[in-house]
């Protein structure tokens, strides 16, 4: 039986073509080689080894960064300890806050340069680094700066004291923004930090180190050590670290939690997710389709809170999937520096291989795969926007985090079924609900066992809004008043 023509279908097939609109790299200054940032200056690594960081859109090296080994991490932790016991913990809170404000301003002032470097080093579209990553990073410093002299109002009945040296390990999907989530609250609360950026995206953290110098922070308050997993492990396990903050995979998070057992160190973990976007028949369908696209294709799907599962009510499933496919066709995959690009480069070859292996797993599990037909550049690491239908709850592509532009679609009939499917993974980081019924929105947002729930929107972030997971998605919150907790001893 033919379905009646839908008047509401959006006409995407207009034959629009876009001329290249690349962002200039002229104003960007990147050194050929970066040392470790310890005690307020860039220093040579103990073993003298360096490794290249590549542009994932070209596979070409951008710069060399130092490989930090145990002695370097030790040196950085000592520098942080000296700064903590020296000027930083003795400073009047309002003065400490003013330093953090300076960092916010310096990020704002250098935002264009930082945005371009973020896209060069990590592969994300310039539109996103320019409009989301960098402004949010600055906003985060601005927000927490103001807390520095107001901590006594945050925890009624308790006195708050800083913890000491924080060891922080961040991922490659939002390099500078994750740095801000870690460093801003730590400093505002009076701690000093040693931060390790991801090995594929170290550059904006090193540019941030320059800003730390420019801001005149006392040496050792912020230290940046570059390297891969071994460097991170050395930092996490260093006995001089009082608090560990990690954002990354659930797999590594469990290893860290295990290794911290019995040490008395405090820790917060921001781990993986497998969020469901639950779309009801009464939703504004076109809006929902935009939300689904934003949910899974934002930042190439390299988002821990990505809406990587779509649960769509059966009566509108066909319509939603048709519209989704049509919308996917319009997405432009390519040069991250081009202002028209929707989906940039996959962050690394290893990640691309992981995504591809999941595509094979999905097919082997009997799911039906659909990819958009867009062209992709020859050099570089790319993945077309992808969706799977015909999947079941126990499939690996439904249960496991892929961390790429890959959406698994299931249907449901009743609200109860939708909720049960949404909650049926080991994760609990985020979720989405699409419906025009107010009461249903709040029934669903209460029912979803996750730390962040978006109703009729998705992937929104703000420094005042706490972020973090239930279940195996981690523990502790970042952002907002609740994010202070991770960097304070409330029993003081």
């Amino acid at each position, binding site marked *: 039986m033919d379905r009646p023509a839908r008047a509401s279908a959006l006409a995407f097939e207009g034959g629009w073509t876009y001329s290249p609109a690349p962002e200039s790299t002229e104003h960007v200054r990147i050194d050929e080689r970066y040392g470790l940032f310890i005690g307020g200056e860039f220093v040579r690594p103990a073993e003298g080894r360096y490794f290249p960081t590549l542009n994932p859109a070209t596979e070409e090296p951008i710069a060399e960064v130092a490989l930090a080994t145990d002695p370097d991490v030790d040196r950085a932790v000592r520098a942080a300890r000296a700064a903590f016991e020296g000027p930083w913990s003795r400073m009047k809170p309002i003065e400490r806050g003013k330093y953090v404000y300076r960092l916010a301003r310096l990020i704002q002032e250098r935002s264009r340069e930082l945005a371009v470097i973020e896209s060069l080093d990590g592969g994300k579209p310039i539109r996103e680094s320019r409009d989301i990553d960098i402004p949010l990073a600055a906003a985060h410093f601005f927000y927490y700066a103001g807390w520095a002299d107001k901590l006594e109002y945050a925890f009624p009945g308790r006195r708050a004291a800083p913890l000491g040296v924080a060891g922080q390990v961040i991922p490659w999907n939002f390099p500078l923004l994750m740095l801000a989530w870690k460093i801003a609250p730590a400093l505002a609360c009076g701690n000093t930090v040693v931060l390790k950026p991801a090995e594929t995206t170290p550059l904006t953290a090193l540019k941030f180190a320059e800003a730390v110098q420019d801001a005149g922070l006392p040496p050792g308050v912020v230290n940046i050590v570059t390297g891969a997993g071994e460097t991170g492990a050395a930092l996490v396990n260093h006995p001089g670290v009082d608090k560990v903050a990690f954002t990354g995979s659930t797999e590594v998070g*469990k290893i860290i*939690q295990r290794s911290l057992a019995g040490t008395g160190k405090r820790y917060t973990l921001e781990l993986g997710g497998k969020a469901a976007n639950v779309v009801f028949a009464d939703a504004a369908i076109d809006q929902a389709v935009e939300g689904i696209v934003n949910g899974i294709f934002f930042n190439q799907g390299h988002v821990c809170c990505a809406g990587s599962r779509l649960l769509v009510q059966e009566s509108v499933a066909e319509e939603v999937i048709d519209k989704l496919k049509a919308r996917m066709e319009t997405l432009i995959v390519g040069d991250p520096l081009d202002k028209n690009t929707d989906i940039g480069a996959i962050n690394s070859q290893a990640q691309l291989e992981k995504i591809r292996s999941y595509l094979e797993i999905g097919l082997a599990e009997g799911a039906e795969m659909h990819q958009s037909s867009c062209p992709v550049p020859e050099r570089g690491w790319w993945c077309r926007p992808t969706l799977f239908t015909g999947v079941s709850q126990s499939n690996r592509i439904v249960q496991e985090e892929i961390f790429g532009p890959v959406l698994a679609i299931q249907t449901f009939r009743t609200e109860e079924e939708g909720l049960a499917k949404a909650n049926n993974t080991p994760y609990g980081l985020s979720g989405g609900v699409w419906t025009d019924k107010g009461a249903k929105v709040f029934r669903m947002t209460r029912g979803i066992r996750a730390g962040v729930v978006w109703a009729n929107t998705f992937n929104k972030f703000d420094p005042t809004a706490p972020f973090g997971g239930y279940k195996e998605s981690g*523990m502790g919150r970042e952002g907002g008043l609740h994010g202070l907790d991770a960097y304070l001893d409330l029993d003081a």
Partner: protein
Amino acid sequence: MNRPARTPRVPVAKTYKLYIGGAFPRTESGRYIAHRDPAGAVIANVCRASRKDFRNAVVAARNAFGGWAGTSAYLRGQVLYRIAEMLEGRREQFAAELAKEGSSKRRAAAEVDASIDRIIHYAGWSDKYQQVFSAVNPVASPHFNFSVLEPTGVVAILAPEQPALLGFVSNVMPAIVGGNTVVVLASESRPLPAISFAEVLHASDVPPGVVNVLTGRRAELRRELASHMDVNALVVCDGDDADARRELQQEAAENVKRVIERCGTDWRAERAAGPYHIRDTQEIKTTWHPVGI
């Protein structure tokens, strides 16, 4: 025909069992521990719960979770208040039981009174901790954004050895007033008050499965509490050495369990209670809702 001799009345001894899913079963293992008073006389054969008993208790706790978490704060407050009322009516029974296990009469009476007061304290928090700890977040975009507390889920509790009743109450109440369900391993050396307290819970409109109580060997069971994949948080009170505590934390990492260590706490102190103890087993949920779009 002789008249029967005047004999003293034979007291009826209580059988102490487990409390799982609102019932009082014996351990499925059939094992027991002869529990003796300080003079060496057997007071009771206490159940030596097995790992299977613990797993059964977790199933009961998980099944009870949705319903209990969904009750109103007002109702949870009234249920806790009812627990205090029931305990108040049995002060003498509990004081005698604590004395039987070695407390002085004065100390036993004081512990029972402190336990009642602690329950009242948490009953009053039921509809207030949310207001203290939640937030409306002034985001820089047109969204109504707020963060509230929600219970973590199923909480396993290794209760302190002493004070057996007050320590039990001080760890169970903050978890359940916040909507969690719990499985508690009672004090190994003084297990009786916990089981008698289960009878109080049973008479207080606490839904079946919200509180489950096991008795047994801590060294045998603690690892199961820490490693169970359907337990969301583990509360550890005094009773393990440093190696065992480390092992518990390692096991807990298997499903990213929240580990709340409450070792070295003076449970008689006022500081041993309060909303931060409730918050220990709560998650923060942030909800985004568009405004004016």
